[in-house]
């Protein structure tokens, strides 16, 4: 209760502050007055440039832009040069002159201070004239942006090598380059009181369920936060179940993944300022899919998928199983193996559970260290890592050989999960299950597993059961979850919510020698 009150109170303060800073709405015809207000707004903003000049030598005008966001060179050549050229005819209307001589593609008329600020903030210079209530925003924004590069987080062997960048326009253009149909819709809105971050909601009309789009739109509109720096902010504010560690949206920086999701009727949320787009709704099994699965032969992809499922289980359970077996179910181990295990554990002073926890935590620490360190020091980490989780630890009598193997396999296993945000909860849940295994043996492991399964069954991602198509069972959709059916068999879209456009391709796509022009 106390918390809630406090939050409400804060809200009131914020509202007041905003109200205080109210800006007069329309522009005045008096240039000086306009400039005074703008100067007041951009007080102590050293990056805002006010440049006054005379149009054709008689009308006072002002060009305002933000350093580094606008293309100064073009401004010189295409705005200032033609406008400042002294005209013979003194009676020329500056407005017509602008329309005639300004060689800029995008010129937007603006008539309010709000629009001024908005245009300035994205880098468009504005041009204000004496005696005119209208100004012009010139589409000359240009700022330094990263070139389109190969996404480093999702590498593929085969597939396009382009990745999303930080700029929203670039990202939408990447989508548009792949889906030429006008049915690709992009709804934009701005979120964040101060950052005013642009968010684009991309979907394909007729494929995405309208109620789903409406739902996402509503959830986005509810967000009232001071700033949005990354899609993670939005993810946390719109997901169905805020407490679960499992990701309820799919994060990708690959345009091809985004497009294939769009074609399945999902919605892509692009946030300005981050190369990671969110794809919703997401199911547990789609987190095991990699874009590459569809570029390789279906048998290979199916096998790879099963390998991922298997290794996901290993990553979650192997240390627990080892602890359970070595401390509770020794009879399961074949005699010869048990005897060597016993020999190697004989000098280890810790119980198996402590040994496992120790090693797993060390490994997680090592991984975290490796992630954050500058590249120059990276080599040092791997050397130290090999010492900590390796023969040296065994020789020191701290851990057994078998434990080192277990930790190493678990580590490899956790890297096979294609989505990083799914690998995290699995790594996290490994620890409670280890505790259960240390207390109840395999009974505990099973109880932990059942608890996780129950939790997953209760989850929904934007109304879609998280474990579909396996639970609830949807036979038709399983061909892209438990296996990767050949492309010619994947002729229906996965069913997400509501009505949908079921057929995704012609039904007779299987290549055959009888077909074709011969």
């Amino acid at each position, binding site marked *: 209760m106390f918390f809630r009150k406090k939050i409400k109170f804060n809200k009131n303060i914020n509202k007041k502050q905003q109200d205080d800073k109210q800006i007069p709405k329309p522009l005045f015809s008096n240039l000086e007055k306009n400039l005074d207000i703008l100067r007041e707004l951009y007080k102590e903003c050293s990056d805002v440039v006010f440049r006054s000049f005379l149009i054709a030598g008689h009308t006072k005008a002002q060009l305002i832009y933000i350093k580094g966001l606008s293309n100064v060179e073009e401004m010189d050549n295409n705005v200032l040069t033609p406008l400042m050229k002294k005209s013979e005819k003194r009676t020329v209307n500056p407005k017509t002159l602008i329309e005639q001589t300004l060689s800029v593609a995008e010129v937007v008329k603006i008539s309010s201070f709000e629009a001024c600020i908005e245009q300035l903030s994205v880098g468009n210079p504005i041009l204000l004239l004496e005696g005119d209530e209208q100004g012009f925003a010139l589409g000359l924004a240009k700022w330094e942006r990263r070139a389109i590069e190969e996404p480093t987080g999702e590498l593929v062997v085969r597939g396009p090598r382009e990745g999303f960048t930080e700029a929203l326009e670039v990202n939408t253009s990447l989508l548009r380059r792949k889906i030429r149909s006008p049915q690709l819709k992009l709804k934009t809105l701005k979120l964040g009181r101060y950052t005013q971050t642009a968010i684009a909601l991309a979907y394909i009309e007729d494929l995405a369920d309208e109620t789903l789009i409406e739902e996402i739109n509503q959830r986005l509109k509810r967000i009232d936060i001071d700033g949005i720096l990354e899609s993670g902010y939005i993810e946390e504010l719109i997901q169905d179940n805020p407490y679960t560690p499992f990701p309820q949206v799919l994060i990708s920086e690959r345009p091809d993944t985004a497009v294939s999701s769009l074609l399945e009727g999902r919605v892509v949320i692009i946030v300005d300022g981050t190369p990671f787009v969110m794809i919703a709704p997401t199911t547990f099994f789609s987190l095991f899919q990699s874009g590459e699965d569809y570029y390789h032969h279906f048998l290979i992809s199916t096998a790879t998928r099963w390998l991922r499922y298997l290794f996901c289980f290993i990553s979650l359970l192997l240390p627990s199983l080892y602890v359970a077996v070595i401390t509770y179910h020794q009879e399961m181990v*074949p005699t010869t193996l048990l005897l060597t295990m016993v020999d190697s554990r004989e000098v280890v002073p810790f119980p198996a559970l402590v040994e496992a926890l120790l090693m797993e935590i060390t490994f997680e620490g090592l991984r975290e260290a490796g992630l954050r360190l500058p590249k120059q020091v990276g080599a040092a980490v791997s050397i130290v890592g090999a010492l900590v989780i390796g023969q040296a630890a065994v020789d020191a009598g701290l851990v057994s050989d078998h434990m080192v193997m277990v930790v190493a396999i678990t580590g490899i296993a956790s890297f096979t999960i294609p989505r990083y945000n799914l690998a995290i909860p699995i790594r996290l849940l490994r620890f409670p299950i280890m505790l259960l295994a240390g207390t*109840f043996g395999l*009974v505990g492991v099973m109880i932990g597993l059942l608890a996780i399964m129950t939790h997953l069954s209760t989850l929904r991602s934007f109304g879609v059961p998280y*474990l579909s198509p396996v639970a609830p*069972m949807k036979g038709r959709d399983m061909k892209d979850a438990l296996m990767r059916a050949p492309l010619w068999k994947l002729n229906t879209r996965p069913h997400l919510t509501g009505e949908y456009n079921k057929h995704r391709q012609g039904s007779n796509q299987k290549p055959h020698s009888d077909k074709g022009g011969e």
Partner: protein
Amino acid sequence: MIEKGKISALQMGLLMYHAILATGILFIPATVFNVAKQDIWISPILASPLGFLSVYIAYKLNKYYPKDTIMQYSKHILGTFWGKMLGLLLLLLLITSLSVMFWQYGEYVVSEFLPHTPKSVIIGMMVILCAFAVHGGLEVLGRLAGMVFPVFFLLFLVIIILVLPDVEVKRMLPVMENGLMPSLKGAWVLCTWFAQFGIIYFFLPFLTDREKGLKFGMLSVLVVTLTLVVTNIIVIWLFGNVTENFNAPFMSASRYISLAEFLSHLESIVMAIWIAGTFIKLCVFYYVVVIGTAEWLNLSDYRSLVLPMGFLIGVFAMQVFLNSAEAAEHFRIVSHEIMDTLVYGLLIPIFLLIVAYIRKTIFKHKVRRTN
């Protein structure tokens, strides 16, 4: 309606499969062997008609009152007072049944695998886990059953394949050494399991594909019967006369497995998967008890009952028997003399169906509900 979620008929069938078989697959072979000897595989076939009958009667009742569970239509059929009374009887039977099931689970895990762990902890953990699932609602149960079943069934097949090298068909002979009587007696023992199919009347109103309800209910009985027959055949092929030495022959079969020296002593894995099956079974009965109580009390939501009921059942299960002799006495009286499952699974529905039939056809009473 009190339950907002819906499940498919297939999910209902899977829930019933686990509800009957999870404990049955362990204990049935030994219990039936005591009377039927090497003919134990005949007994499930003889007992299965009872399962089909239970499902059919529940289905018939559901036809009369498609949106109600037994708690509601017993009121329409018998009037409010007697309906409530019958509901109370049903609830008491189910609650004792459930507590005994929790006890059985705890007892088995403790006696076979964790002899030094207090039973209250084992039972308590399971109660919490089940409460978590039941709180999620029927949809969650349906999904869990859908996930557990393939694993359960796969394991069953794997065990059977792995013991095949050791089986000897000869051990089944002679078939019907002492006539049909021993297997009939075995079937009588099995009735307590098959009659449990009656609780399907709690699920029929919540189906998305109502017309398939009967089909999948029957299919469930059939698959249970087949599983039991196969289990019993395998057990008798593998162990023959020695079966009676084991408490849970199927578990002992997994203990007997030895393949390539590596795959041996699988009983701990079997036990883990068995826990998953038992979890579904306990959830089904837990859910039935909770939703039955909520309907009996005319509550608008059953979720608030989950934890209190869990607490009650947990305490019951921990305190119900002091030793195995008391348990044996209980099973002798309640399961085999009173036959509680037969009462709530078959007799009460039959009684309700007859009364409903008389009221609907003979007296031409329009008892159709507005709801």
